[in-house]
């Protein structure tokens, strides 16, 4: 801690020449080596300086990981230029951030995460050029997704992405279809002899034919 100089930290420089609260980009805290954001604001006094508050990413990450529409759905935050801001798996996110070995890092690129679902959503967003709903395909799986803009006050150029695999959405309907189909076939198989007998009797009646009883044949 002895070599720690607040004036060298990202939150200090951001707020120093501003008269309002400035949000930082994601960076690694000196204190606990975890990723997070800082809000800071400068003040003028006998000795001027900057007041700051740290918000760990853990809270947001935990919340994102709980937002499961289906088992395979994904909810994450990224920037317009394809950088990752928050991801439900903090361990994966932190691993990428620490690759540089620095406590002050640039946001990692989505491609570094090696998550095809997240990358696919970003590609769909880039193709469209605007936030909204998208359907895209990754590894023969279709995803329905939505990209929502986050107000600049809570992060510069940040977007919230949500992707849900279509097959997982359709699964209950398909399971119900299969069940109905199975019961229908079973019913048809069991009812078929009765059905055939009734139809044969109906045709015979229409043709004016009457089945000969067995005892009459014996005589």
């Amino acid at each position, binding site marked *: 801690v002895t070599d720690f100089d607040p004036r060298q930290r990202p939150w200090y420089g951001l707020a120093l020449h501003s008269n309002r*609260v400035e949000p930082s980009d994601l960076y690694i805290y000196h204190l606990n080596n975890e990723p997070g954001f800082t809000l800071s604001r400068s*003040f003028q006094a006998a000795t001027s300086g900057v*007041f700051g508050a740290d918000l760990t990413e853990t809270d947001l990450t935990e919340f994102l990981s709980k937002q499961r529409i289906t088992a395979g759905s994904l*909810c994450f935050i990224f920037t317009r230029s394809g950088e990752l801001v928050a991801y439900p798996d903090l361990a994966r996110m932190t691993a990428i951030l620490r690759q540089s070995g620095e406590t002050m890092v640039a946001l990692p690129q989505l491609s570094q995460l090696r998550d095809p679902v997240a990358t696919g959503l970003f590609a769909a967003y880039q193709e469209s050029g605007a936030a909204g709903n998208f359907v895209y395909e990754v590894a023969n799986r279709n995803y329905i997704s939505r990209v929502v803009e986050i107000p600049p006050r809570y992060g510069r150029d940040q977007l919230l992405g949500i992707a849900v695999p279509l097959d997982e959405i*359709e699964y209950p309907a398909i399971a119900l279809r299969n069940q109905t189909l199975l019961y229908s076939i079973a019913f048809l198989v069991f009812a078929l002899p009765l059905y055939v007998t009734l139809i044969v009797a109906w045709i015979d009646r229409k043709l004016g034919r009457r089945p000969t009883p067995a005892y009459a044949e014996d005589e």
Partner: protein
Amino acid sequence: VWPAYVGIIGLLVLIVVVLAGGIIWYNLHKSTELMVAVAERQIVETGEKVSDRIRLLYDPLYAIVGIASQMPDVEAPSNGNGYAGAPVLLRVLSFYPQILSLYVGLDNGDFFVMTNIGGDRAAFAIRIKRLRATEPAQNVGYFSTITVSKLDARTLG
């Protein structure tokens, strides 16, 4: 006659199969449409929930930083051993567990930080560092948010 029987029965069975199949297919089609509509609605709701959460995380921080930076004694760490605003900040940390730490960095390099170390909102560490001093950073101590009294560091693990 039997070929006629077989033909008529086959035709009627086919009609039943086609009708049942059509109903099942139509049911699947409509169920899928419903499922997708529900999922789309859920996606919208999830987006709103996450946006609300982000707002809830950040808005108190904006207010705290905005107000705390204008406190009269905000630069106090440079003038003495204690920090006049510490009790207020301690309360703030206890009310908002999402805040890891609150700190003041001064133009002369001095630094004061109050950090949530309990995780369960029970304890916070206060540290003051003076850049010009030759001695290492000074740990003022560990405090309980409930009593604002000093805690024994050994009990914090």
